[in-house]
């Protein structure tokens, strides 16, 4: 179950990416606020959703990349970042009538923890608790689920932090950035994501794996390549018609 993540514009990228990787993506993962590249989906949600539809992968997964030093910080910092993230998801949903929540009511919301960033338990608890408690669109179905993008074997606290999380603060999945064998969507590696269970007592599984990053793998198109061991579109926004 392979797809792309990008900080670029889907509608500018999908044709070149399809040419380069020989296969349409099943899904896209896009940056939402707070992130350095959050503006593209926020400002062009209709065009982005249309791009996802046209690409043949009409599912939009969610990641947020706050100022990385904040991830070492306090509960209040985590809560504030999560509040902006949830609000940006709602804002996109408000703009695009064809954007629907997952049928299983579980939208995975990844927090981007880069390799050289430490994640404090205070921040994670503030962040994850807000996401898990968010009453999306006043539906009372609480469809947002905290999840974590990280390199499980990084020397900075990541898996050990989420190992200490409790209840609904436990992430639904890790999205592992390692290892990086590269490949294409057509010729992709067997699922082999690094697992937090190998680096800590966390039992959270890596259900999503970024097996190829643009700079490290020398890709031309502005995408990274991802593979899931579960049906990843089930945990993404669905674009149900061309907006």
């Amino acid at each position, binding site marked *: 179950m392979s797809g792309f993540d990008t900080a670029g514009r889907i509608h500018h990228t999908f044709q070149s990416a399809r040419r380069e990787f020989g296969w349409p993506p099943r899904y896209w993962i896009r940056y939402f606020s707070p992130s350095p590249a959050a503006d593209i989906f926020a400002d062009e949600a209709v065009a982005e959703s249309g791009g996802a539809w046209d690409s043949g992968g009409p599912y939009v997964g969610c990641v947020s990349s706050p100022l*990385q030093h904040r991830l070492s910080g306090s509960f209040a910092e985590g*809560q*504030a970042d999560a509040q902006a993230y949830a609000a940006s998801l709602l804002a996109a949903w408000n703009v695009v009538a064809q954007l629907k929540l997952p049928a299983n009511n579980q939208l995975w919301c990844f927090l981007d923890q880069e390799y050289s960033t430490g994640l404090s338990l205070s921040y994670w608890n503030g962040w994850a608790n807000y996401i898990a408690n968010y*009453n999306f669109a006043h539906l009372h179905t609480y469809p947002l689920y905290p999840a974590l993008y990280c390199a499980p074997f990084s020397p900075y606290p990541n898996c050990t932090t989420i190992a200490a999380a409790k209840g609904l603060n436990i992430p639904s999945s890790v999205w592992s950035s390692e290892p990086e064998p590269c490949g294409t969507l057509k010729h992709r590696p067997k699922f082999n994501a690094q697992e937090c269970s190998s680096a800590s007592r966390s039992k959270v599984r890596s259900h999503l794996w970024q097996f190829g990053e643009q700079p490290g793998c020398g890709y031309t198109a502005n995408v990274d390549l991802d593979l899931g061991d579960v049906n990843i579109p089930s945990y993404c926004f669905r674009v149900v018609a061309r907006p």
Partner: protein
Amino acid sequence: MLAGGIGAGALIALPDPLLALRGDKPPARSPSPVAPDSQYVLLYGMPESMPFSGGSVAWAPYPEPRPRGPFPASRTRERLVAKPVADKIASTPVLSHDRTTVALVTVHTAAAGAKVTLALVDAATALISKQGSLTITDIRKGANILATPVFAPGTPTIALVLAITEPTGRRQARKVEAHTGRTVPMHAVTWTSHHALAYFDRHSGKFTGPFHLDNAPSLALTSAAANSSDLFVWTTKEPQPAKTRPQPPPLPWVSVFPLGAGQARASVPSPAPWPAGEPVVTLSTGEVGRLVNGRAVQVSSARTGEVTQTVIQPLNVTRAKPSAVTMEARQDGTVFLTKPGVGQAVVADPAEEFRIKAKVSYPVPATPLGAPWSKAVLSPEGDTLYVLGGAKAGGISAYDVATGKLARSYSYGRKYNGLYQLPSGVLLTISPQNPRLEFFSPHLSPLGTAATDLHISAVF
């Protein structure tokens, strides 16, 4: 009272090795024109373990092949002793424009509400030079407070922008646990944020305020900057569910408050994006520049707050992954901007619509987005750009700004995550594992290393 105001961050001070070991005096002619007396490097980060031991640092002169190291080992161990400055910090500390002071905030429960304490740390001595507290009253049990200090250059005022997030609704609900698949009961909480302002006078040590803004429900995240007369604050209304779709997202607003006031004298819509701690600087004109989307500077009028936007073309490059971006105002009125994810650094002149005065291209470092965000620094004279080495080579490099050409580089294969230049001119690199600190001369000669039990996420 507070659900989680207590922070996880700690700040420790390490003597600048060049000054500490060559006579305990700042150099006669410091390379930094703005912080000539700084003798310490202040390290902010997350302790390896709790309770925090206080930030031990183990210094070592650079190992062979540098047989005649500049610092005798016996002296260094005695004189390079780190000292803890603060822990349980509620938000990332902020450095003053003249680099002489670091402001940090702690938040604690008080009988009548929450006690917010602002401490000013003197960069020259690493001592708290002034401290003051204010109590936030009439807030709900379980509230969280996010405090952002803002220095107003040329004044003794430090503004404090407070985001107060309170639980305004609680209900019983049920939700499927992702990791077990079971439906479990939950205490769902609705959080609502508003903002407040307070002003600290570093002469008197007294606070004015807090002034609560009538802007609930807003997003807690703000951006803020000040000039010598006004405080600029970007806020965003929290979007609400659309009754009919499509409904456009709320725009942020920038409000201009006279220093000391709780009432804005101007408040205008600002172009997106929503504020989220992006780089904001006070320009020499008194206007305020906000680097947005990693590629454009929005300048807010000092008089009205109205915004004009200029795209910085060398930064207007898209990659699959976003990048750290930094912007800092320089003494000569120019600004230095860099985006390590696309390997670009520029010096631009705000007085000429951000005309590019110098541009350097460099290989993308190994961690262009991760902490610390400082991956490239411009020397105080503006003639040399120091950057982390590329993802393959590691090490550090120096570029001649006038020509854009590589002047020299040094690497033994180690890939660093952050790069700073201390007021003494010494370069400091940050690594994930000990020794986490390495020191280099401005000519990239290795000087020494230091180990610490702090995961470093920022350096002041």
